[in-house]
């Protein structure tokens, strides 16, 4: 079974803090994704990566950056957290373009 793990289930941070969300997958997948999920808005893609050190902006990249130094690990960085970044963050991975994505359990982030 594909396993995607996220470093934290719940996080509470203060406005202005730098926040790191980590995601690790164990199936040698090429592609990795970061989404945020908000009620009524569904899943919105923040960034994705199709190879080590490669990244592309998704639909809502503002205020976020990413890092993929190793194939199995994809990090989401909030450079200066703001209250409007309070959300559920979901990481996913997939083997190939447009194919099934496998999701981690999510990190619920609260920015005070």
């Amino acid at each position: 079974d594909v396993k995607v793990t996220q470093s934290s289930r719940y996080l509470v941070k203060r406005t202005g803090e730098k926040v790191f969300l980590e995601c690790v997958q164990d199936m040698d997948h090429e592609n990795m994704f970061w989404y945020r999920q908000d009620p009524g808005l569904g899943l919105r893609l923040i960034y994705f990566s199709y190879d080590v050190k490669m990244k592309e902006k998704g639909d809502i990249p503002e205020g976020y950056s990413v890092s993929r130094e190793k194939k199995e690990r994809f990090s989401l960085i909030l450079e200066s957290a703001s209250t409007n970044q309070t959300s559920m963050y979901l990481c996913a991975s997939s083997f190939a373009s447009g194919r099934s994505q496998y999701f981690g359990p999510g990190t619920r982030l609260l920015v005070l």
Partner: protein
Amino acid sequence: AQSVAQPEDQVNVAEGNPLTVKCTYSVSGNPYLFWYVQYPNRGLQFLLKYITGDNLVKGSYGFEAEFNKSQTSFHLKKPSALVSDSALYFCAVSAVGGATNKLIFGTGTLLAVQP
């Protein structure tokens, strides 16, 4: 541009009755279509997908979905609902052969199954 619509925010059904969760899509070319389920405070779990072939696709937990090209729909169905099916369901689409790696997700439909 690719898009997915889930026209119902919530679907209510009695246990034992058939259920349908609706999804329509817009994509250039042939689509890859997916259904995912999310239980409270969990990530999304893959249910089923349509890539090519038979229009009726069977997936996990007794769910199935029918691809209808003329209506650009991919509705999720189950013959007999269980209370444990209560969850948030997402439809997603990607273009076959497209350069993008992205799936586009609908806004989700909350399924509530009453005992």
